[in-house]
């Protein structure tokens, strides 16, 4: 098939997909699960349990207090030991429920999900649920976007009056180097992804769904293109390998040719975008009433002894997942949750796996140290590679000098923090650091009503 792509900017970082051929393995249950109450965009969930409570897998332990929030379910069975704080990907301690794990009993209310191994579930292709029922099931199961941003999925499928949806776009791109979780999901559970896509398509009420897959996953492309023939309303489209193809605005542009205007959402050009993992989670939520309690993530890095893709229960401390991959290497310098371009570096391995953790990347000391910052030589490479068509050299300098209104007028808030500029800069300037600072200050000023 002809490959599509987006036009403005983009880079080609080394792919390093060292785990692309490793089949998914289950990670053993932790001894103690650390369930964070804020694993999504929006308000943290409200605690529903207290110390000493017995819980089963799927018991509601955190309830969404409003629309922009998500339910949290216990990923393990056992007893609530403590309500404590743990450092999460934000770098700050957040409220978490500590559960001592006993066995693996599933709450009967969550259906037959607990009976089957993840790779032996019978496929349920018959979709009975209506759009409203699907949205309710997504909300009940606490399904959030699994591409990293963790936006509550049911909210995305509530199309406000005045807006129309035309396309459902499923993101099978995984443009971050090193990460292969979505890749393996498509290779090993393609039908669950496809039925999930059908479910989401029905919830959105559109005729067409397109699954975008980057060409560096030829086996996934082939398998999905083959299986999709049974689903007349879904199309698989190959994409040129270019970062950040998986960013939703660039994906919408490549697949439909439409550009989401500044400050607006994909829905404003008739599209809704979700990750392949979210599509599978939707399938499980609707067909099996299975709540969001586990996910596939990639543990990788050139120094890691046993890199691979693991199915991990949420709440498992990352130290345990790293143990499964051969333990923390001697020369480990940086631990990143996510990929190398947009992932968050963490200072401790106590951090638990959350709904948005797509990977654990370990860089060794040589790879981890940033090169020294040198003067800007005005080579304009940052301008050339910015996928949003911005001027990073200028915006970061304005942010550094606290000239936030000027930076905002020049397009600072359109920055998606993809990191292409910092990656390309021959002077190794810390562009994204200052862009992010500038964006935070603009938002803070907006809240103050300036």
């Amino acid at each position, binding site marked *: 098939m002809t490959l599509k792509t987006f036009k403005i900017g983009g880079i080609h970082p080394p792919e390093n997909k060292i785990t692309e051929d490793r089949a998914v393995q289950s990670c053993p249950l932790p001894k103690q699960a650390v369930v964070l109450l804020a694993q999504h965009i929006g308000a943290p969930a409200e605690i529903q349990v207290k110390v000493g409570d017995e819980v089963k897998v799927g018991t509601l332990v955190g309830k969404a207090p409003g629309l922009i929030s998500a339910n949290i379910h216990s990923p393990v069975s056992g007893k609530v030991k403590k309500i404590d704080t743990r450092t999460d990907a934000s770098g700050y301690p957040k409220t978490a429920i500590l559960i001592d794990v006993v066995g693996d009993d599933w709450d009967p209310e969550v259906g037959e999900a607990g009976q089957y191994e993840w790779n032996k579930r019978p496929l349920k292709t018959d979709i009975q649920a209506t759009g409203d029922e699907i949205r309710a099931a997504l909300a009940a199961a606490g399904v959030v976007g699994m591409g990293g941003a963790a936006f509550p999925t049911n909210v995305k499928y509530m199309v406000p009056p005045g807006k129309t949806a035309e396309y459902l776009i499923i993101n099978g791109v995984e443009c971050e180097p090193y990460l292969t979780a979505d890749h393996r999901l498509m290779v090993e559970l393609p039908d669950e992804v496809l039925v999930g896509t059908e479910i989401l398509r029905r919830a959105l009420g559109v005729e067409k769904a397109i699954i975008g897959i980057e060409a560096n996953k030829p086996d996934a492309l082939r398998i999905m293109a083959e299986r999709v023939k049974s689903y007349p309303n879904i199309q698989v489209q190959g994409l040129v390998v270019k970062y950040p193809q998986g960013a939703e605005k660039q994906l919408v542009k490549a697949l439909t040719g439409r550009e989401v205007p500044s400050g607006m959402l994909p829905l404003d050009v008739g599209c809704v975008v979700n990750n392949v993992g979210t599509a599978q989670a939707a399938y499980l939520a609707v067909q099996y009433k299975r709540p969001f309690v586990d996910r596939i993530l990639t543990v990788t890095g050139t120094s890691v002894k046993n890199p691979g893709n693991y199915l991990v229960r949420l709440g498992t401390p990352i130290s345990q997942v790293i143990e499964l991959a051969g333990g923390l290497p001697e020369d480990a310098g*940086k631990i990143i949750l996510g990929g190398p*371009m947009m*992932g968050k570096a963490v200072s401790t391995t106590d951090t638990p796996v959350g709904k948005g953790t797509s990977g654990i990347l370990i860089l060794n000391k040589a790879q981890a140290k940033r090169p020294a910052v040198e003067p800007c030589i005005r080579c304009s490479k940052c301008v050339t590679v910015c996928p*949003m068509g911005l*001027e990073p050299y200028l915006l970061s300098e304005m942010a550094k000098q606290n000239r936030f209104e000027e930076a905002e007028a020049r397009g600072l808030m359109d920055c998606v923090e993809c990191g292409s500029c910092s990656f390309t800069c021959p002077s190794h300037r810390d562009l*994204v650091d200052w862009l992010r600072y500038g964006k935070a200050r603009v938002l803070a000023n907006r809240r103050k009503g300036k």
Partner: protein
Amino acid sequence: MSTGMIVSLSPHVRTKASISMVMGMVIVAMIPAILAGLWAFGLSGALVMAVTTGVCVLTEWFITVYMLKQPSRINDGSAIVTGLLLGMNIPASTPIWQVIAGSIFAIGLGKMAFGGLGHNPFNPALVGRAFMLTSFPADMTTWPAPGAARWSILQTGGVDAVAGPTALGMVAEAQGLPDGLSGVAGMPTHWELFLGSIPGSIGEVSALAILAGGLFLLVRKIISWESPVFFLGGLALFTGVFWIVDPVRYADPLYHILAGGAMLGAWFMVTDMVSSPMTPRGRMIFAGTAGLLTGAIRLFGAFPEGTSYAILIMNAFVPIIDRYVRPKKFGQKKKEASRG
């Protein structure tokens, strides 16, 4: 005090490129032109190039370490590039003391006075050349003939003994004659200009060698195509209009492109990153106008060659070009009508 894990903001991987790599590529691209210049002008050319490069590097090192008390930056290679470019822009017969003065001025005032690498609004090599042209007009417009000058440094009389007019000098002279171009004896042909056997600055004689280097930089994505194409295009447009009107007195645009410093200017001077705009459209405006100005100075100005001044003038406009010309932004089109 490094303990535990390193925590920093994304991205956590960086390109392998660096400033020294970029400068290294530019130096590699200049090698064909330098070799052509050394072949044409021999030891005197080599001496001038060595002095410009050496003095530029020394000046930058001295100012950075002793006057500004900062760690030396000469490893990034930018002073070497300036030195080589300056050498390529001046005649091989320039007295060495003038060469030293020009090099110190180029780096000292053209670059360090503004804050060092990345801060200079003007192309430092051209600043040096402009200083030398204004201060030493006679020596800077005496052009040794290639070949004959090769070993002339060892002969009595030195390289002055074999001076000659440049192609552009002849073109300027032709404008004033009633017979026009045919009234001037010994004008080089297009081929001679392309291959490089005519008098001129050390680096500008062989358009072929310059083109080879320029294409190398283009392929390696060190420079972008807008600057050289629009510069030569602007020059061709301006001279072309006059040539169409009066082909007897005015040389054709291709001649103008091949003669003088236009090729060197197009591929190495107008593409200098620090002093050119940051957007493709900005570079088109900058280089195109510089090309037009070059043509204007050549045809109507007091000098037969206008590249240096044209580029310097446009350097002054780069900040305002960058202020008003923006790159193509994502999502600028009116949003697609989403029916309803």
